[in-house]
Each structure stands twice: as C-alpha cells, then as structure tokens.
C-alpha cells in the first residue's frame, strides 16, 4: 500500500490554502513559481553573455536591479524545495529515478519532460504566471485572470490528453 502514503488531497489543499492566505496577510501578494525560472535564466544569461542579455528587453527587469537574486519568489521556491524534500523523506517517498509512464522509453521521457517544460516556460510568461501565481493566487482573490487561466488550462489539457491518449495512460 506504498502507493497510498500521500495525504488526502483535500487536507493538502486546505494546507496550501492556509499557506496562501498567510502569504496574502503578511506580504500583500500571493505565491509564485514560474517567475523564478525566468529570473534565473535572465541573470544566468547576463553572466554568460552580458552584451547579448542586455539586448533582450524582457530581461532588463532583472538585469537593471541591484541584487536581482534577493527575490521573494526565488527564496520561496528554495523553501518549496526544502519543504517537499522534508515531506518525501519523512514519508519514505524519496527515490532517485526518472519517473515515466511504464510503456515509455527513458529517451522519450527526457524529451517530453524537457519539451513540455519549454511550452510551460513560454506559456507562463505570456500569461504573467503559472498555476501558482495566476491560477491559485488569482483564483482565490476571485480575480478574472485566475479563472480564465484555470479554465483554459483544464480545457486544453483534456483536449491534449484525448489527442495523446498513450502519453500517460
């Protein structure tokens, strides 16, 4: 019964909701995730090739500030990693592996993991956030943004799953 070592999603969801509420009350904004990846990419490119990075207008929001890495969402993501590590360790859930559907080859999985990530990275910037910053935070505020994002995401996920039936099932 190792498979059922997770908590009820309602309990975990209530915990997430209380965490989000505490964030609103303390800071005045919600939680985020995707912007940390954009920030690290911008700052990383700024180190590798300052000249090219400064030509990219979108990254100027990271490169024209004094200490871009002292960023709220980036620190929150570091906490997220530690919290999830703690959770998986304590539950005996931690295992180094490539997680994939049974029928999929490891090579294909590496491509779907990376390729799907590219789509997510692009989509999150276009939508000004992801499941955390727009869907959860915006949805809880009853902001139109959150509900537009959630509905579009689920609708397209269902269509994509119907088109790629063998991807995960």
């Amino acid at each position, binding site marked *: 019964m190792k498979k059922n070592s997770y908590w009820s999603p*309602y309990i975990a*969801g209530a915990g997430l909701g209380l965490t989000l509420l505490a964030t609103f009350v303390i800071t005045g904004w919600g939680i985020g995730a995707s912007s940390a990846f954009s920030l690290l990419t911008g700052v990383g*490119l700024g180190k590798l090739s300052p000249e090219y990075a400064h030509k990219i207008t979108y990254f100027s929001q990271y490169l024209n500030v004094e200490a871009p890495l002292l960023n709220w969402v980036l*620190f929150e993501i570091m906490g997220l990693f530690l919290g999830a590590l703690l959770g998986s360790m304590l539950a005996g859930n931690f*295992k180094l592996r490539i997680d994939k559907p049974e029928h999929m080859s490891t090579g294909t999985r590496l491509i779907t993991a990376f390729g799907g990530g590219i789509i997510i990275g692009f989509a999150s910037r*276009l*939508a000004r956030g992801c499941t955390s910053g727009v869907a959860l935070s915006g949805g809880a505020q009853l902001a139109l943004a959150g509900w537009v994002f959630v509905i579009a995401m689920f609708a397209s996920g269902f269509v994509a799953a119907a088109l790629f039936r063998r991807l995960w099932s």
Partner: protein
Amino acid sequence: MSAPFIVSQTAGLVLAVVLGLFFGLFLERGGLGNPHKLTGVFYLTDFSVPKAMFTAMLVAGTGLYLLSDLNVLDMTRVWIVPTFFWPQLLGGALFGIGFLVSGYCPGTAVAGLASGRLDALLTMLGIGAGSLAFAIVYPAIEVFYFSSSMEGATLPSLLGISHWVVMVIVYLMAGGMFYVMERYERNR
C-alpha cells in the same frame, strides 16, 4: 496596524523561505510532486489536482474576504493578479499542453525534483529555455502581451455582486465537482 504587513527585505526573504517550506510540504504530501497523479485528471484516473487546487482556492479566498470584511486586512493594499484576457487565455491553453506533456508545472516540478525525480529537473531546465524563448520573441508580441487589459478585474466587480454571492457559487460548483469525482472513483 492592519495587514498586509509589508516587511523589510531581509525579513521578507526569511518569510519567503518559511512560507515556501509549507507550500512544498503540502504539495508533496498531496501527491502533487508525482507526474502520474498530476496528469491523472486529464485521463479521469486521479483527481488529486482539482481536489487540492479548488480546496486551496476556497480556503484562501474565504479567509481573504473574511479578514477584509472584519477590517483585519486592508484589501486595497493587496496586489490583485492583473487580468490581460487574451494573453492569459492563450497562455493558459498553451500551459495545459505543456503540463500534460511534461507531467509537471513550475512549482510541482520543484516538488518532483525534491522527491528524487530527475525528469523534473529536465522540465525545470525546459521552463528556463521557454522563458528565454519568450524573452527573445517578446518585442514581436509585446502589443498582444499588453492587449485586453482589465487591470485588477475580479468576478464580483465585473458582475456587480457581493463577493460572498460569488464565493457561494464557487462553493456550489466545487462541491458538485468533488461529489461527482468521489462517486466516479467509488464506482470505478
């Protein structure tokens, strides 16, 4: 002094780690670091994602509006997620495809890696690459990116009704959805 208590940068960053820690703990414990569970909803095999997500929204939303009505929280100082209708509709639709293909979203990929999933690390690198791709094409799509701005629009303000009426509608919708999901899971 009423909330939100915008804190100093150092204190803010310490709190970011603490709040993130709980965020990650609940994500992982809810099974949301596991790509099979994350994509299960799209194949009608596992409903952890909508259950956890809508419960979280209801709890946080109820608390937010309750504290605001009790004058504990000053809503005018809370940053409302801005709406740009078409970019967010298209972004959300694209996101759904990426979510299904990779099996993760940005936060859950970090939770996936923290439970030892190396494929999640590739998704994280992909998210960086996708952000770079966006930044490169940004000048060409900037007009679209700023189009259909409805800055600060909320469902209660758009519909011109009390936030509690909207909240009750959301409760009923989520409750109905949870009921159908539980029944479906039991009968399978």
